């Protein structure tokens, strides 16, 4: 895509880690040396409630803030955002710019309504299905890593941030500077940590999920020419350099 600026709108369900994903993607872009900002949008923090989060990515300094009304990238973390209307933005592609991209977490294509089909066609939108939850279950042994899968997939589609910067951002989130997302997320952290006896193990599972979906997008031929796969073990090693 010949766009120097990405406006990414993420939509998903409460508990899927949409806001966390936006922090990780945005921080990864900053680590890679480009500019990024983000803003979350949610009501009460509860499972299954609609959640949106917005990430701006640019080679230049970013001025705009607030939610993104006219995105050129849309990420759908759960099919029911579209099929059950679990979204603040209906239909989900509202505001999508001409030639925009939708990355949808689903193993199978969504059965769009005729209106939705037309809406997407009118905007000349590209729709990519990435089975992030399946990959998370397979690689990390938990669907909680779905958001990591979405981060890996979008980074390949955009060609930024590179995998190592993205991995560095995940490391910041779990064992580095401790990115503050929200009080509810802090409680979730301790639950996940119990599941993974050690943070290092948790980090490795996340890294491998990032890698797997990044590779999936490359294998499908949807990746940006700048996307570059690194070895999974190297990625894990790059993140485990820090003291745990």
């Amino acid at each position, binding site marked *: 895509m010949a766009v120097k600026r990405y406006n990414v709108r993420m939509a998903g369900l409460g508990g899927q880690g949409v806001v966390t994903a936006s*922090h990780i993607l*945005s*921080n990864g872009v*900053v680590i890679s040396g480009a*500019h*990024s*900002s*983000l*803003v*979350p*949008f949610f*009501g009460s923090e509860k499972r299954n409630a609609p959640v949106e989060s917005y990430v701006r990515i640019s080679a230049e300094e*970013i*001025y*705009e*803030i*607030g*939610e*993104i*009304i*006219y995105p050129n990238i849309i990420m759908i973390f759960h099919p029911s955002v579209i099929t059950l209307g679990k979204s603040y933005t209906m239909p989900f592609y509202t505001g999508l710019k001409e030639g925009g991209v939708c990355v949808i977490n689903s193993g199978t294509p969504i059965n769009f309504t005729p209106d939705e089909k037309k809406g997407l066609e009118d905007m000349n939108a590209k729709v990519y299905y990435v089975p992030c939850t399946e990959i998370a279950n397979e690689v990390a042994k938990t669907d909680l890593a779905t958001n990591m899968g979405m981060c890996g997939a979008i980074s390949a589609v955009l060609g930024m941030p590179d995998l190592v910067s993205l991995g560095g951002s995940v490391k910041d989130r779990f064992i580095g500077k401790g990115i*503050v997302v*929200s*009080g509810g997320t802090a409680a979730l952290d301790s639950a996940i940590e119990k599941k993974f006896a050690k943070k290092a193990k948790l980090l490795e599972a996340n890294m491998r999920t990032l890698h797997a979906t990044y590779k999936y997008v490359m294998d499908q031929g949807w990746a940006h020419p700048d996307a570059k796969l690194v070895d999974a073990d190297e990625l894990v090693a790059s993140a485990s350099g820090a003291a745990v």
Partner: protein
Amino acid sequence: MSTPTAEVKRKNTGKHTNVPGKPEGWVPAGDLQEVVTLEKMLTLPRETIFMTGSEAARESIRRANVDMAIAYPITPQSETMQQAGYLYDEGYIKDYYRGEEEIGSMSAISGASRAGVRSLTATSGPGLMRGMEAISSWPGARTPLVLLDMCRVINTPLAIQPDNIEISFLLETGMLVMHAENQQDFYDYPLIAFIVSEEVDVTLPCTVSVDGFFVTHARGNVSIVDKKYKIPPRDGWRNAVPSMDNENPPARLSRDAPIQKSNFISYHMHASWQQEVFAAVERSAKYFDKYLGGLIEVVNPGSDEMLIASGAAVSQAREAVRQEGEKGNKIGLIKVKTIRPWPGPQIIEAAKHAKKIFVPEFNQAGWLHKNVTTTLYGHCQAKIYNGPRVFGGMTMPTELILDWLKESRERKE
């Protein structure tokens, strides 16, 4: 501004030993900071960190030498005051508690300020409205303190998004009102707010308003000074009116009995008291001008088409200026940093030549538009457009500003 003597510093260091819940000999982190003047604080080398607006506010409070913080949680303010709670735990804030609700919090923080200590509170939209009875009495009571106001919808339908109509309710109270654009401003402005509000010829509360979620919960690059520095403490004896003396009984709860007893009050006294409050607002301008590097910022001065904005609308306007610039159109922008004091003369100077003026705002009332039109009446031939505006806390898409510009050109007025 006085800096503490070595003697005061020695007396203060380590005085909080044996604090419950802290190890023996615990020293509050704030006692180990070095005091520097605000001028120096604003010019010291900085490190740039990618952080949320709430974290930026925390880093500001960390360096602000705050004695007392009282707040009642409300979204989206809660996150910032949670961060302030960590500062209390580390010993950067001397005392901190959660109020019962906003009338209580706003009354209590006024008491703290009257006692002569540096005081901080925070709220959002509906909380501000609930606290308004107490807040409206702050300026007349001459209580220097800082209110961080994370704007949020107050009108129905209910929402928690950052509509800033609440600022209009503060404008005629006699408070100082700053409107921060982004995370960086939300770090810089509170430090400036404390010092200006405590100047003897000001002695007024100062609000630092910011457009809620877009800044508090969003990340941006913020350049901050090393945490080993803090600004000088409040000198409670340098005030326009005496501080309350709690050490020597009987403690005087009122400033001056005849002023507070309505059956004694003369209308002249009320008038002169209020005139003095608003004169103090004007006197604060010289300090804001010095520390903010001007009450307004002007981008592309001299342009025929100008945008005048405050808060988050400035960011959207900057992007509109950039996108129009890429098409070869030079659009001007005036960022209004302080709403009170209102930079009337500066706005006239920067806008008097303009042919068209747009005032993008994140509220229904158009309070900035009203102030701009009142100021420019008789000083400027420009057509002043009544917008664009967004309601209910929606972000103003840059596209909306571009549309207004486009339509105004097509209309050929």
